[in-house]
C-alpha cells in the first residue's frame, strides 16, 4: 500500500490553483436527505487502494458533525453525511491534511442516473424469461405430445407477456416516439417483429398450433438489451469520470453586506452593484470592475491569452478568469445570466441549433432495411395467399420472415463495436461521451485546434533553463516560492531539485502585481516586473516577444528570465499523424499573433488565425461546415465552447472549462495530445468493423430469407439462426481490441516534459 503515502507537503506544492471549498460552498452543493442530515459528494482522484479507504473514512468520521463517510473506490468518490444543525464540516481541509486533494462534486437531483439501473433490471428479467422459455421450448422441440405442447406453450405465453411488457417497453417507447414524429429508427422494426411474433404465437397457442415463437420474441429482447446495457454502462463510466473533475466555475461568491459584513451568496443571487471579494485562487463569478486591490489574472480559459494580465482598480474583469496572486474587491457589473459565461452558453445553444442533426448509422441502416424487410414479409403473405389460399399459413410464414430477419444482429452490430472501442479508449484515458461521437469522428477531414491549453499546456515555463546561472536560478526560485504568480511557479519548477543554496532572507514580501521583494542583510532582492525591480528600467529590457521577469539585487539586474507556454507533449506527433492521414490542420486562437505564430511554426501548421473572438470561432466552423468540411474541434477554453458545440465532432482536455467539457464528445485525461490521432485511429477501425458487421448481418439475411419465404423456418431454426448471427457479430466486434494489440505509443522523447505536464494538469484538478 505504498500509494498511501501522503503527498509531499512541500511549500511549492500547495501553490496549486485548487480552490478550497468554503463551508458555505459545501452547504450550497449538498442536498438534504431527511432526518436533519445533509449529504455532500466529493471527488478524490487520489484514492487508489484499500488503505486509502480506511485512512479517509477514519479521518472523516472523527470530524464533529459527520455522521457517516463512505468511500467509493471505483468512482474515486467520497460521500459524507453531516448534521444540518452544525456548520458544514471542514472535509476538504481534513482530506488535504492527510494528503488527498479533494473537490466538491455535483450531487444535485438533476443528475440523470436512472437509465442504467432500468436497463439492467429489464435485462435481468428478460434473461430469466428467455432461459425458462427456452427450457420449455426445447422439450417441445424434442417431441412433447400435443397436450404437453399446449401446456408448455401456455406457460411460455404467461411468462412472455409480462416480460415483454416490462423489458420490451424500452424499445416500444423509443419506436413510438420515432413514429409519432414521422421518423423511423432501429426500434421500429424490432418492436414490430417482437409484437407480431408474440401475437402470432398467442393465436397459435389458442388454436393448438404446433409452432410458437415465444422464445424467439423474448430472446430477441434479451440480446438487444445486452447491447443497450453495455452501451449505457460505458457512457455512464465516461460521464462519471467527467463529472468527477473539479468544477471550474464558482457556485457563488463572498459579497459585502452593509458595513464590513460579508456573506456567501449563491451565483444566481449576485446582482449588479454588489461588491464581491475574490480571494487569490478563486475564479471571478460574474463580469465586474475592480474596486480595490491589485493582482494578476489568468485569462487563458476565457480569452486564450497565455500571459497573465495585471489588474489594478478600475480594470474590467470577465467572468471565468482566475485571480492568481492577491485578493480583489470587485463591483459586479452584470448578473450571472448576463455575464460572459452565460453569453458563451447562449452562443453554444445557437451553434448547436444551427448544426445539422446527425443520424446515427444504425438509424440510417434501418431506414433502408425496414421497408425492404416489411415489404418482403407482405409479399410472402400475398404470395402464399395466392398460392395456397390458406390465411393462417400465409400469416405464419410472413411472421417467420419478420422474425428471421428481425434485426437482432443489426441491433447488436453497432453497440458492440462502440462498446469495445470506448473501452479501448477508456484504457488510454479518453472518455467517449456518446457513441455517435465515434461514428462522426471517423468522417472528419479537418482538425481545428485551439492554442492556449490545448496545443500548449497553458502554464508558463522558463525558456532555456540551462542557460541561466544556477546560483541566480536558485535565488530566484527561493524568492518565487512565496508567490502564486505563474512565472514564479515556472521558476520553482525549473529549479526543481537542483542544488544551489540561496541566502536566508530576513524578510520577504509580495507586492501584488509587481513581484516579490526580500532582504538578506544589507541587500535587497527583487523578482518581478522589470520596471519595478530595476532602478534604471530598460537596462534588462530583453528584445523578446516573450514575457519577461527579472531578478535584481539592489536595483541592479542579476538575471532576466523569459517564459513561454510549453507545447503540450505529443503535440508534434499528433499534428504529424493527422497530416499523414491527409487532414487539414488549423489553429484558431484568441491569443495575440506573436505566440500563435510561434506555436504554429513549431508544429508546422501553415493555417492559423489569432485574436479570434468566441463568436468568430463558431462562425469560422460554420463556414467550414458550409464548404462541406467535417471538422473536429479540439479546444479547452470558455471561448472555445461555442466552437466545440458547432463542430461536427469535438474533443476537450480534462483541464477544460466546465461548459467545454460538457459540450465535447470526447474528453481526454492524459496530457499527451496523441489522444487525438489515437481516438481517430480507433474510430476509423470501429467504423470499418461496424460496416463489416452490417455486411455479416445482411449476408445472414440474404441466406435465411429464401428459407423463411418458402416456409421452412420453424421456431427451432429461427432460434438457432438468431443466436448464431448474434454471436458472429459480437465476436467480430471484439476483434477491435485483438487487432490493436500493439499499443499506440508516442515517441518517447519528451517524457520529462510529460511528467511536468502531468503535475501541472493535476494542479488544475
Amino acid at each position: 500500500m505504498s500509494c498511501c503515502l501522503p503527498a509531499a507537503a512541500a511549500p511549492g506544492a500547495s501553490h496549486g490553483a485548487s480552490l478550497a471549498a468554503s463551508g458555505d460552498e459545501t452547504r450550497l452543493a449538498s442536498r438534504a436527505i431527511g432526518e436533519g442530515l445533509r449529504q455532500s459528494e466529493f471527488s478524490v482522484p487520489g484514492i487508489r487502494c484499500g488503505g486509502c479507504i480506511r485512512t479517509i473514512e477514519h479521518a472523516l468520521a472523527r470530524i464533529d458533525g459527520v455522521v457517516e463517510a463512505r468511500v467509493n473506490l471505483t468512482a474515486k468518490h467520497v460521500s459524507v453525511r453531516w448534521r444540518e444543525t452544525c456548520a458544514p464540516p471542514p472535509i476538504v481541509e481534513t482530506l488535504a491534511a492527510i494528503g488527498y486533494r479533494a473537490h466538491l462534486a455535483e450531487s444535485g437531483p438533476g443528475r440523470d442516473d436512472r437509465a442504467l439501473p432500468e436497463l439492467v433490471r429489464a435485462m435481468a428479467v428478460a434473461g430469466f424469461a428467455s432461459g425458462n422459455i427456452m427450457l420449455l421450448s426445447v422439450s417441445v422441440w424434442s417431441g412433447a405430445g400435443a397436450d404437453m405442447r399446449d401446456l408448455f406453450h401456455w406457460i411460455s405465453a404467461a411468462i412472455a407477456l409480462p416480460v415483454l411488457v416490462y423489458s420490451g417497453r424500452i424499445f416500444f417507447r423509443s419506436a413510438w416516439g420515432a413514429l409519432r414524429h414521422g421518423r423511423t429508427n432501429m426500434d421500429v422494426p424490432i418492436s414490430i417483429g417482437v409484437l407480431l411474433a408474440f401475437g402470432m404465437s398467442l393465436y397459435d397457442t389458442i388454436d393448438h398450433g404446433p409452432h410458437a415463437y415465444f422464445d424467439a420474441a423474448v430472446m430477441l429482447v434479451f440480446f438487444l438489451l445486452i447491447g443497450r446495457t453495455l452501451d449505457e454502462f460505458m457512457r455512464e463510466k465516461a460521464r462519471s469520470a467527467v463529472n468527477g473533475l473539479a468544477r471550474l466555475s464558482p457556485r457563488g461568491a463572498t459579497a459585502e453586506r452593509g458595513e464590513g459584513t460579508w456573506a456567501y451568496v449563491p451565483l444566481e443571487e449576485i446582482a449588479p452593484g454588489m461588491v464581491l471579494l475574490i480571494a487569490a485562487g478563486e475564479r471571478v463569478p460574474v463580469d465586474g470592475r475592480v474596486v480595490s486591490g491589485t493582482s494578476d489574472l489568468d485569462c487563458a480559459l476565457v480569452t486564450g491569452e497565455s500571459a497573465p494580465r495585471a489588474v489594478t482598480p478600475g480594470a474590467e474583469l470577465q467572468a471565468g478568469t482566475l485571480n492568481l496572486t492577491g485578493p480583489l474587491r470587485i463591483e459586479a457589473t452584470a448578473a450571472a445570466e448576463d455575464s460572459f459565461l452565460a453569453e458563451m452558453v447562449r452562443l453554444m445553444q445557437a451553434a448547436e441549433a444551427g448544426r445539422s442533426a446527425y443520424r446515427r448509422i444504425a438509424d440510417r441502416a434501418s431506414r433502408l432495411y425496414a421497408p425492404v424487410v416489411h415489404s418482403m414479409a407482405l409479399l410472402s403473405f400475398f404470395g402464399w395467399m395466392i398460392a395456397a389460399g390458406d390465411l393462417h399459413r400465409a400469416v405464419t410464414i410472413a411472421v417467420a420472415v419478420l422474425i428471421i430477419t428481425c434485426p437482432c444482429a443489426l441491433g447488436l452490430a453497432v453497440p458492440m463495436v462502440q462498446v469495445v472501442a470506448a473501452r479501448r479508449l477508456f484504457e488510454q484515458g479518453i472518455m467517449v461521451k456518446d457513441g455517435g461521437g465515434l461514428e462522426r469522428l471517423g468522417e472528419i477531414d479537418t482538425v481545428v485546434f485551439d492554442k492556449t491549453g490545448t496545443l500548449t499546456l497553458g502554464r508558463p515555463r522558463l525558456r532555456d533553463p540551462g542557460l541561466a546561472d544556477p546560483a541566480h536560478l536558485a535565488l530566484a526560485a527561493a524568492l518565487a516560492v512565496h508567490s502564486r504568480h505563474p512565472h514564479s511557479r515556472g521558476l520553482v519548477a525549473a529549479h526543481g531539485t537542483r542544488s544551489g543554496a540561496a541566502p536566508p532572507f530576513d524578510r520577504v514580501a509580495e507586492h501584488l502585481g509587481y513581484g516579490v521583494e526580500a532582504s538578506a542583510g544589507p541587500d535587497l532582492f527583487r523578482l518581478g516586473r522589470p520596471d519595478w525591480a530595476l532602478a534604471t528600467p530598460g537596462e534588462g529590457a530583453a528584445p523578446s516577444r516573450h514575457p519577461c521577469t527579472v531578478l535584481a539585487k539592489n536595483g541592479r539586474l542579476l538575471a532576466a528570465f523569459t517564459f513561454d507556454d510549453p507545447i503540450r507533449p505529443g503535440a508534434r506527433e499528433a499534428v504529424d499523424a493527422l497530416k499523414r492521414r491527409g487532414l487539414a490542420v488549423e489553429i484558431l486562437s484568441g491569443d495575440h499573433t506573436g505566440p500563435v505564430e510561434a506555436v504554429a511554426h513549431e508544429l508546422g501548421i501553415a493555417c492559423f488565425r489569432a485574436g479570434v473572438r468566441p463568436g468568430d470561432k463558431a462562425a469560422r466552423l460554420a463556414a467550414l461546415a458550409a464548404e462541406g468540411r467535417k471538422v473536429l474541434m479540439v479546444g479547452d477554453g470558455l471561448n472555445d465552447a461555442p466552437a466545440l458545440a458547432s463542430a461536427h465532432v469535438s474533443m476537450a482536455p480534462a483541464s477544460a472549462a466546465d461548459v467545454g467539457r460538457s459540450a465535447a464528445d470526447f474528453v481526454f485525461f492524459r496530457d499527451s495530445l496523441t489522444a487525438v490521432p489515437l481516438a481517430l485511429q480507433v474510430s476509423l477501425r470501429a467504423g470499418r468493423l461496424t460496416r463489416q458487421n452490417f455486411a455479416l448481418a445482411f449476408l445472414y439475411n440474404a441466406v435465411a430469407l429464401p428459407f423463411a419465404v418458402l416456409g421452412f423456418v420453424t421456431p427451432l431454426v429461427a432460434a438457432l439462426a438468431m443466436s448464431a448471427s448474434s454471436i458472429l457479430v459480437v465476436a467480430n466486434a471484439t476483434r477491435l481490441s485483438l487487432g490493436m494489440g500493439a499499443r499506440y505509443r508516442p515517441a518517447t522523447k519528451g517524457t520529462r516534459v510529460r511528467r511536468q505536464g502531468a503535475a501541472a494538469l493535476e494542479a488544475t484538478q
Partner: protein
Amino acid sequence: MSVLAYLIPISLCLGIVGLIAFLWSLKSGQYEDLDGAAERVLFDDDDRP
C-alpha cells in the same frame, strides 16, 4: 406425467427467487463499488455500510 404439475411450478419459483435476489442486490447498491468491496473484505474492524 403428473409429476410435472408440481415440478414446473417449483422450477419457475426457484428461478423467480433468484431473479428477485438479483434485483434486490442491485437496488441495495451492492454493485456500486465493486473494487472497494474487494478491498473492504480485508478490513478487520466491523464495517457496516
